């Protein structure tokens, strides 16, 4: 029996009816159509589905959609403001912090959550911040360099 689900995604309110077994990632990708968040595994290990829920980085494949009832969700699609990219996005572009791009949404959201909780993380803390995300292409170091650049203030957001 389907149940009501109300949540905001990237500032936009949604009202849906979902089967209880529906995962949050399915609501985002299949019901709302935000395909930026990816899925890369069946055992909560790869981190490609990372989003922010009530300010925390979480794996959307490992949360029942109904548990996000009333929650504020942010996905990669909400990073840019119109055509103005988020500093992390600019840094990823400049530092080559992605290659095939499949893990990139998860990496960006994990990094954003990290910086919103702690704007001045150490290199070790940045590594910890993305340790839940697998990348098979970059070897992680370019991602760490990109995040470090944002931490150092290379991409001060214009107010």
């Amino acid at each position, binding site marked *: 029996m389907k149940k009501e689900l109300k949540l905001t995604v990237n500032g936009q309110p949604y009202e849906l009816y979902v089967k209880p077994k529906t995962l949050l990632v399915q609501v985002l990708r299949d019901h709302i159509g935000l395909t930026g968040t*990816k899925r890369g595994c069946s055992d909560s290990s*790869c981190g490609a589905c990372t989003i922010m829920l009530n300010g925390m980085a979480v794996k959307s494949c490992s949360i029942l959609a109904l548990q996000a009832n009333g929650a504020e969700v942010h996905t990669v699609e909400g990073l840019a403001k119109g055509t103005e990219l988020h500093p992390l996005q600019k840094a990823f*572009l*400049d530092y080559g912090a992605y*290659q*095939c791009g*499949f893990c990139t949404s998860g990496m960006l959201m994990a990094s954003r959550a990290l910086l919103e909780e702690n704007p001045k993380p150490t290199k070790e803390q940045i590594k910890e911040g993305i340790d839940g995300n697998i990348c*098979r292409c970059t070897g992680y*170091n370019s991602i760490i360099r990109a995040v470090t650049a944002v931490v150092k203030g290379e991409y001060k957001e214009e107010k």
Partner: protein
Amino acid sequence: MSKYSVIGQRVRRVDGPEKVTGNAKYTFDIVLPNMLYGKILRSPHPHARILNIDTSKAEKLIGVKGVVTGKDTLGKKQGIWRRFPELCDEEILCREKVRYVGDPVAVVAAVDEDTAEEALDLIDVEYEPLPAVFDPLEAIKEDAPQIHDGVELNINVTRHIEWGDVDEAFKKCDRIREDQFKCSSQAHMCMETHDAVASFDYSGKLTVWTSTQASYYIQALLAGMLGLREGDVRVIKPPTGGGFGSKFELDSAQFCASVLSMKICKPVKIVLSREEEFTATKRRTPMYYYLKLGAKKDGTLLAKEVRVITDGGAYTGMGATALYLTGFFSSFPYKYPNYRYDGYRAYTNTAPTSAMRGFGAPQSTFAGESQLDMMAEELGIDPVEIRRKNGMTPDYVVPGQAFIQSCGLHECLDKIEEHIKQRRKLPPNHGIGIAAYGFMSGGIFNWFDTPYAFSAALVRINIDGKVDLFTGACDIGQGSDTTLSMICAEELGVKLEDIRIHAGDTGICPADLGAWGSRETLMNGNAVKRAAADAKNQLLEFAAAKLGANIVYDMDIKDRWIHLVDRPERGVSYFDIVKEAIRGKDGEVIIGRGHYTPHRKGMISPAYSFGVQAAEVGVDTETGKVKLVNVTTAHESGTVINPVGIEGQLEGAIMMAGGYGFCEDQPMDEGKILNPSIADYKLIRSLDMPETKILEIDTYEPEGPFGAKEAGEGLTNPTAGAIANAVYKAVGVRINNLPITPEKVLRALKEKPKQKK
């Protein structure tokens, strides 16, 4: 100041904005109207005859729209080695026999994935299990079960490479070593699993969107298997989430989705689960290595004998190439006056083994570089010195095999030697090990039997000067879209932002053999450069007429300025000439064509890149745990077109090759892979990644576009060998079988006789 305007610059990749905004639509994301979801039923047996398949219950399940088995196909066998029909041994949807746990037997299309999965449980398959064999050394015995009809002793491919007289040469050696190594399997672990959306329409045309490294191969193989004309099959490669060698053969997602779609005339999407990805897609070829090396006491290598038996798994795929290349690269990067290689590929009832980044060279480098260090120690010669003494040099001829033009190996050795000296004082139980390699820039031997040029490109200049670049090259993350756009922009004399690339769509792009063997930069780069030059020449004709300069002057375009090379201040805007040229051609757009197939370059590769890697490890002698501390690589890849791209390829290669060295593995029991999930398949995450350093050596490869050659694949060759040598340097134990796990190291430490200081 750089002589180039575009290449060599640190640029943002052209596909960047789409990827960092989550806008890029991978095959994984594609949803079409009326699309159905497919799921594949796979054999639970490693070896069995299929007696009967009853799909009636599945067909009746509400929501199921189609069920297909091998009987619904044309019953053809395919393989990527089209030139040799006996190696085209894979039906994909099995009709009579299954040969590994995971071999497909049926596929269902339904309104959603859950229904499709439910339907699989309703398909009754009657199997007659057959005796199975899992180890190649067992498979080649007389009494082993025969896996493919007509293949004696299960040996389906053999290779032999020889020059000089190895047996005579050994007699002249002062020292001879014989060593054995075991190289493990490895999973590609692309972040995007194999997937395809196939749509067959009522006009008899098939369109397939798929995550692939070679849309042309998929087009041709699908056409063959489905009885369609190649021109009626269009394969489109959307942004692709990784390949690493797993995605240039026809796979079960593509074939099964196509067969289903043809039956029901609706789009069908199949996405392999991560478990299927681990168990039922092709993997790195495991190998048993036997090496005999002979040297003089001054360190000159006189002879090398190599014997390899590879675990082929259930089907051939690209395994035949891996068998050859491992033997060829066993001779790299040294000048052996005498060399002999014999390779045997044996079928086993396990998931087929095929191509993975490095293509047999990580295996040969692990074995060869380990043995070379052992020989160096026996002779009392420094590991860098012995490599220096025997290392390949520019313009070296590998007898009867290949011609090496550019080669920066010695400069790489110098740089690594310097690096090691700088890290002189290491903590206890730390060690630095090195490994040297050389790798190809694409392959020449035409096992696919293509009638087309290996690479081709089309350049179209529009009225506003914007350039459309059409190429069959496939960007799977390695950055070929950007690299090729840069080459095009440089040659044409415009800016990177003037280029718009259309790649990997067989409907509109000329054929390219795809992204494997590290070929795109050199081969497709040459095609793109020629196409751009062709278009440029058409513009120059008009510019020459306009400028009316003395005939002795050459013209060129740089930074959108068409000018006399010797008098650059005399010129005209690119944009103006484009308008005039199109008018002059009666309104026809300017099209430039280019293609490239390596001719007179031997049968292996037109160019080779070289490098030396130093891995520093720290070993915990009580637990055997090996920590990768630092990996420094000196390498040369000709002119660097896309520096950010190369750095990324290097660091990514270390993650993959480092994993091959110490943690990635696919243990099996009775043909069943025991760790088919990411939680259980150990790979390097950000906290495990060592510090990395790149030392770039400047070289120029005449065969490559602007002097460029490969980078992305060769860099996976040395790491396992460097780690093995480093562990030995750190704690004095040799691990000759991969991966180098803590348990193996600890056991070796305990068995090591106590040494007096």
